[in-house]
């Protein structure tokens, strides 16, 4: 099974893990997470500024573009701690946009945007549409060339943090082919964004109407690298969400353990009952498997073939373990678990949302089966 990838860490990864563990815990206590649910923006701009100053948006950007010159492997511990502390910000989408630019952007596009992202500018991706298909090439939005400009039409859904992003990378069909385009936030007209009601209340997401949006022809990504860009986006998104879900699994298991260790019924601490104890152990085992896969995927990042197997294994296992652990957390909290006040629901909702973004565990497995058996 060696050919399916190994596990290892880098020094930078471990340093970042230590810093991120403290930062995310300190900056995202639960009362703040709760307060931000009712906030329009959905995150603390001061914290976002600090994330930029820490250089975290620049980690996987080459030094030539003012980046740190590391890889997605070093993004993993940060995303993990963010997921653990339900710290929602445009960190993930901005990192993804940079990866998309690196995979398929022209030299000019990279030179224009990557230094800005390195310096803390938020960005996002507009990929999903009404079909609900996780296949990124199954899209209906179009771009029609008109001299030096391109007229866009159609609607994009689940565009996270679109109101904060200065840059949106969208997929559209141009002459029947999938192409990626760079849309500056300023190109969108009044009313182009409609805030969506999404299952994860800690995140923000928008429907983006492209009708009437015109962009210059040089906003197109390199035509020859569309396939590569799709693959890079899928894998980077898979890795980031797997990391967040792993952190979330850890948090919801700890949250459940805390309750099992303190709540009394029938004069006994309920954690002594095997009906609660044993499934909690099983959920913990599944979480540790997910975390092992996560750091294997980080380690295998960039390896052709092997990297995709490792990322999809991590995403599949993280989604199933997060879903299960949060589901059981609701149940094990009894009546309190049914309330909005119980944090278990925050995690359960986020697991659903994360699965919706990248493809749930069953989808990841169907992709894996092709890689493993065909």
């Amino acid at each position, binding site marked *: *099974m060696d050919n*399916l*990838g*190994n*596990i*290892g*860490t880098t020094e930078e990864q*471990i340093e970042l*893990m230590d810093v991120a563990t403290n930062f995310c815990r300190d900056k995202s206590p639960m009362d703040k997470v709760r307060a931000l649910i009712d906030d329009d923006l959905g995150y603390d701009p001061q914290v976002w500024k600090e994330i930029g100053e820490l250089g975290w948006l620049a980690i996987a950007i080459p030094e030539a573009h003012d980046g740190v010159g590391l890889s997605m492997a070093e993004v993993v511990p940060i995303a993990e701690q963010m997921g653990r502390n339900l710290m929602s910000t445009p960190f993930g989408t901005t990192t993804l946009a940079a990866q998309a630019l690196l995979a398929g952007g022209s030299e000019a596009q990279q030179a224009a945007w990557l230094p800005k992202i390195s310096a803390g500018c938020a960005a996002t991706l507009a990929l999903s549409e009404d079909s609900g298909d996780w296949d990124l090439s199954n899209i209906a939005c179009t771009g029609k060339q008109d001299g030096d400009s391109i007229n866009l039409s159609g609607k994009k859904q689940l565009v996270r943090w679109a109101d904060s992003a200065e840059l949106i990378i969208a997929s559209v069909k141009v002459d029947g082919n999938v192409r990626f385009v760079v849309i500056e936030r300023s190109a969108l007209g009044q009313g182009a964004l409609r805030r969506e009601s999404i299952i994860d209340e800690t995140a923000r997401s928008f429907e983006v109407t492209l009708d009437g949006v015109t962009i210059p022809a040089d906003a197109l990504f390199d035509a020859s690298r569309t396939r590569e860009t799709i693959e890079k986006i899928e894998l980077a998104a898979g890795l980031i969400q797997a990391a967040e879900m792993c952190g979330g699994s*850890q948090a919801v298991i700890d949250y459940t*353990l805390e309750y*099992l*260790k303190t709540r009394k019924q029938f004069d006994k*601490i309920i*954690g*002594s*009952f*095997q009906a609660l*104890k*044993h499934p*909690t*152990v*099983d959920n*913990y*085992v599944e979480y*540790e*498997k*997910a*975390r*092992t*896969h996560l*750091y*294997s995927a980080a380690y295998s990042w960039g390896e052709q073939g092997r990297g995709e197997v490792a990322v999809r*294994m991590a995403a*599949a*296992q993280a989604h199933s373990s997060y879903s299960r652990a949060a589901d059981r957390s609701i149940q094990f909290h009894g009546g309190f678990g049914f309330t909005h006040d119980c944090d278990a629901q925050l995690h359960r909702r986020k697991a659903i949302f994360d699965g919706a973004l990248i493809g749930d565990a*069953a989808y990841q*497995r*169907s992709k*894996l*089966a092709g890689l*493993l*058996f065909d």
Partner: protein
Amino acid sequence: MADKPSAAELNEFGDAADAWFKENTVRDPGFMLPLTFMEVSTDQQFDFLREWQRKVYEAGFLGASWPKEYGGGGMHSEYQRVATRAMKKHDAPIMLNAIGNGWAGPLILDLGSEEQKQTYIKGMLTAEDIWCQGFSEPEHGSDLGNAQLKAVKEGDEYVLNGSKIWTSLGDRAKYMILLARTDFEAENKYKGLSFFLNPMKVDGISTSRIKKLTGEYGFVQTFFADARISADCLFGGEGNGWSMAMKTLEYERGAKVKPVGGYFVKELDVMQIVELAKNSMRNGKPLLDDPVMRDKMTQYMIDIQALNLNNTRRRMPQLMQDKPMGLPLMNKLARTELIRELTEFSLGFQGTKAGYYVGDENAVDDGYWHRSYLNSFSATIGGGTSEIQRNIVAEHALGLPKTR
């Protein structure tokens, strides 16, 4: 301790071991070889494996790092590691004397007297003296600390009464590591226990074979009826039985006493199951075209890969900071349950042939998968059931309160 060998010295030793196992390994002696020391059923199997262990020992590839004065090779532990690797590479049969070499030996080397070391170590390495384990009792399986076999001191002897069960190789063993109750008034159940290096061939000790669910034999129930053994057989002092029994488990990790080498259980090669699936048909099409089988097999691949990688992750403190006991303690639970599920799953590949069993010429792989599935319970039940393992993980890794 011997000096750490140079790479060249190790390579030379490794090449010699490799050549020796290539030359001497018999994989098909004409009868089914046991996959674990718990499955030795026939005289043919026993004789073959006993002879095999002696041969490996005499070639210098077992006990290579145990002290020379007691029969070991007196070499650095790296040599033994290299030899074991060669053994694995050539898919050599298991080492038979598991309880002797894996449990009793390290305990005696660690805490035994000079005389005990002289008496016991060499015979367990040559497999001349087979050892068995007497911990479980018919009424006390999971609740080991509650063992009731009575050992009463009379003069310079102990008189034993009671029964032990699930004793692998019990009818063939010369010695048993025995957990017995010497004090029925002790302040708690653990403090009443003592540990003995018990001779099996004495009056009053008899064994009765137990037929396993596979249809094979392999372990026995042992009866003690006024059996008298020398008081010298007591090991570790009266009342210290529980801590001695727990110590035997620690040696598995090889930190205190260098591992004897070899293996007592053959790991199932899970990739064989993928091969079996790939070679199986369903409705005229390859089995793995069936979406349900495909999805399940993929999940198992995820599980297998995670457990394999966990072995590496366990040695990486930077990824073990939160709940450091979690991964080590969950390993037995996760691995044995996965193997049970996988072998059960493999039966479904076989269509009508899932109806055959060992001994029929129409059986797939001579019934290997059926036998493996039924035998997999020995690992989910033996050495602490999966349910007990969950308690252990819950209490020692997750900090949940004890179940009372």
